[in-house]
């Protein structure tokens, strides 16, 4: 019997810090984790094999990770085979394992099909902070002259790109949370930053066998900087959708806090 925990959340939403915490608590996250970068000095805690697989599926669908509208991935047999093999290997080698990749938000239904008992930790952050952080990261990459300059530049060529991405990723998370409420736990970046006992909450909910470790210094203050001004938006039709998604995410976060209180009282 094995358990799996997937960490999913939009880019720049605190998923790396969360994964780092779970890694310390004993969750196996992969053999080859992506290295630290200036934009993520403590490391991404992303399994290269899973990330590559997600990139490949996106490429098969003529997409990059800059997905800004809902899509249903077409997955060919070769990719299914790769996913199945990865699952089989990990299940054989680890009693408890998981992975973290923001792109996982777009593929949760696929993973749930292969891993019917998998649990998903949903990490979310306010659109304003996420999109600003994304802009900071990609402006730095653009000016530093790194490869894929065309990709970084898209954030300043396509109005609202980051905001539409935030909406697409988070709507996918919300859809998953509605479909599998018992297998989803939602936390905001702010909850974790402010000391929410995440590992303890996961254990109370699912009893996976993680060791309780303090949140400690997993947050890089620079990564949690908030947008200094209000969120710019070009297409005003987005506003209602974004606000609704944010309220729904906050409701999920509140549900997590209520669950924890109830179980604490009961326990």
């Amino acid at each position: 019997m094995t358990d799996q925990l997937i960490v999913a959340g939009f880019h720049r939403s605190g998923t790396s810090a969360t994964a780092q915490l779970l890694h310390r608590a004993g969750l196996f996250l992969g053999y080859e984790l992506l290295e630290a970068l200036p934009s993520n000095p403590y490391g991404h805690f992303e399994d290269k094999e899973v990330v590559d697989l997600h990139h490949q599926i996106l490429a098969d669908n003529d997409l990059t990770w800059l997905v800004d509208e809902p899509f249903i991935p077409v997955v060919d047999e070769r990719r299914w085979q790769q996913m199945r093999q990865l699952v089989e290997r990990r299940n054989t080698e680890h009693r408890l394992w998981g992975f973290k990749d923001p792109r996982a938000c777009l593929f949760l239904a696929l993973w749930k099909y292969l891993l019917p008992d998998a649990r998903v930790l949903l990490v979310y952050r306010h659109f304003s902070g996420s999109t600003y952080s994304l802009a900071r990261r990609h402006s730095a990459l653009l000016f530093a002259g790194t490869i894929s300059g065309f990709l970084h530049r898209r954030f300043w060529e396509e109005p609202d790109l980051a905001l539409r991405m935030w909406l697409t990723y988070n709507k996918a998370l919300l859809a998953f949370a509605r479909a599998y409420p018992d297998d989803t736990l939602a936390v905001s970046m702010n909850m974790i930053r402010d000391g929410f006992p995440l590992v303890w909450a996961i254990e109370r909910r699912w009893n996976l066998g993680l060791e309780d470790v303090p949140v400690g210094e997993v947050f890089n203050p620079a990564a949690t900087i908030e947008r200094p001004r209000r969120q710019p938006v070009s297409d005003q039709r987005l506003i209602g959708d974004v606000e609704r998604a944010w309220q729904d995410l906050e409701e999920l976060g509140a549900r997590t806090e209520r669950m924890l209180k109830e179980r604490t009282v009961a326990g």
Partner: protein
Amino acid sequence: MPDNEFYTPDDIDLLRMENELLTFEVRFLKARLGQPAKITGSSTSLNRLAYLEDAERDLVLLLRRLSGSPVGPVLRRSQRFRTLEQKYIHSPRLQGSSSPERLAYLEEAERDLILLLRRMSSKPFGGVLRRRKAFRTLEQRYL
């Protein structure tokens, strides 16, 4: 002169994005020039304001971290620590970046942060705390 020598910048989205990118470029170039984060003098330039706002943010984060840590209850026995918590965590922050009150508040936050960091850096806990990168970064930035 042909008509196409002129254009009227009427695409507000394009202007807005260009402006945002230029702001990031300035930030990037300043960082590359190695401009020290600490800007001296009493000028209330945008740089100084940005630095003070960073300091306030770091102070709030540090206080939240300390409050939520196992030593939180011990620290809370100190009146000074309770005052800091009350001032920067529990009380609403002054808004309006250009107001003199806001500036005074931010300058006070900077002073409080420096005092707090000095206290934390000293013996016996300084050596232990210095093992953490985030703490070393704060020390380097403000002390």
